[in-house]
């Protein structure tokens, strides 16, 4: 399956395969939570966290984590105990499991299955379930409202996400993300541009815009953060959670954000391919380029968060069902036609 771990024991290899995405998620969550606060600060002409750890408060997330570890694990008296305690882990498991099919570099992919994208979309839909679980088990009106909104939102926005992913599959002809990425290597679109899918077909640009809007909604980012809208629902489905269980939600949320950004980078921006063709290419450079592309998308998500206000519930549904879904399906047909003609 890959060259790095060819000669070690299967059990150990499994552990290593499981730990690599986990490490990436954990480090990303720590950096991204700090980064999001810094970005928020800079956009609002503040400085953001500044004290912990020296340079620009880089250890702020670690300090927050240590604080959360010491907090009491509170379960409300009238909550459904098992579901309440189980929901955060299930949510994290859903986003974590999806990392198995993400090709981090040309030499590493968790699982080389042929139905990669399909598996990813299927597994991430468990997120909806865990959010409803958390919202219902809390036995709290805010949580329930948040959970219900989340269910409606995620189920709805899965349709345009899948439709736009489908346009990429139409072009690439494979569900395996590694194959999709390999297909995009090389630098001869119009003579100089990399062979990334976004440059290959004008309709894929529209597909990417729809995809990006949908993943904003899928990962509960502003302007679609209705499940946890602070100003109206306290914290939505997280209202009753505290300490490490809340931290699990936070982690899952950031993992989901990274996952969808990396999916976008794989599908439209050539995954681990270097933008300079053979220059700065290779397994480690591939990992660097892949994460860089993903993090740029994450940055844009954060940038949008501090720019736009939140949509209303009916506006959210309107955008999805009467704008994005028709647009994505028409776009799918147009992309298919383009592929047939050229």
């Amino acid at each position: 399956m890959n060259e790095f771990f060819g000669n070690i024991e299967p059990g150990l290899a499994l552990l290593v395969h499981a730990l690599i995405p986990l490490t990436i998620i954990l480090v990303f969550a720590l950096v991204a939570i700090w980064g999001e606060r810094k970005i928020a600060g800079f956009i609002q002409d503040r400085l953001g966290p500044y004290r912990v750890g020296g340079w620009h408060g880089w250890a702020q997330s670690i300090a927050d984590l240590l604080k959360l570890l010491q907090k009491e694990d509170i379960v409300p008296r009238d909550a459904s105990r098992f579901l309440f305690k189980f929901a955060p882990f299930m949510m994290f498991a859903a986003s974590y499991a999806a990392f198995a099919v993400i090709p981090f570099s040309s030499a590493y992919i968790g699982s080389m299955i042929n139905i990669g994208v399909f598996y990813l979309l299927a597994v991430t839909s468990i997120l909806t379930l865990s959010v409803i679980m958390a919202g219902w088990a809390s036995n709290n009106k805010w949580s329930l409202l948040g959970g219900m909104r989340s269910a409606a939102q995620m189920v709805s926005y899965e349709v345009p996400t899948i439709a736009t992913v489908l346009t990429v599959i139409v072009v690439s002809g494979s569900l395996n993300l590694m194959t999709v990425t390999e297909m995009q290597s090389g630098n001869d679109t119009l003579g100089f541009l990399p062979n990334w899918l976004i440059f290959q077909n004008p309709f894929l640009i529209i597909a990417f815009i729809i995809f990006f809007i949908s993943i904003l909604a899928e990962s509960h980012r502003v302007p679609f953060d209705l499940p946890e809208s602070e100003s109206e629902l306290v914290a939505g489905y997280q209202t009753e959670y505290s300490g490490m269980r809340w931290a699990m939600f936070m982690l899952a949320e950031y993992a989901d954000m990274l996952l969808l950004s990396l999916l976008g980078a794989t599908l439209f921006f050539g995954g681990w391919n270097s933008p300079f063709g053979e220059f700065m290419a290779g397994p480690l450079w591939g990992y660097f380029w892949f994460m860089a592309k993903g993090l740029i998308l994450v940055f844009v998500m954060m940038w949008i968060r501090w720019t736009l206000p939140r949509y209303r519930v009916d506006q959210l549904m309107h955008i999805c069902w009467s704008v994005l879904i028709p647009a994505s399906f028409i776009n799918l047909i147009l992309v298919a036609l383009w592929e047939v003609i050229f």
Partner: protein
Amino acid sequence: MVNVLKDGWLTFKSIFIGMGVTIRHFFSPSVTELYPEEKVELPKGARAQLFVNIDDCIGCNLCARACPVNCIDIETVQATSDVDLGKTSTGNPKRFWLTRFNIDMAKCMYCDLCVQPCPTDCIYMVPDYEYSEYDRNNLVFHFSDLTPDKVAEVKDKAEKEAEEKQRQKEEMIRKKEEEKRKKEQEEQKETSADKIEENTKDEGSEKDSSDTKEGDA
């Protein structure tokens, strides 16, 4: 259809304008003051901690009387005649030892009313606002520069002088009274002959006044 496209165009246009604004602010320098390291200079006349230049204080008590919350506590002792306390920088002679000049900043309401009446401008507010304490009693600021020994000595001296003065005064009064008595005695000797007549006259006039009072009632 045209309207849909127009709306879509407007939507994206406004979103990108907004994102342009935020990214410009992202790169513009922050306005945050890193407080303990960088301090903003307070504007002139800012009301902060009270300070007393005790060398200029003449112990007139005007500030304590002006204070609406009674946070200034002054005790003065009159200087004895053998010491000269000198003059303030404004030229006023100092006549009192300031044995106690306490300001309770926990009570102070920063009204600035004590600053105005001071004749020598020795009480004023300084731009120092970092004097938090864990114990409220530590917020009482002592401005008197006299040591307890000195205070005791000064009080003792002043008391003695006051006693001395009192004694002198009493002596003087006694002397005066004696002189008066002597004078009176001399006068009595001179006028002893027509003294009895005067006494009877006085009694008569008193009787008249009491009669008129009864008649009124």
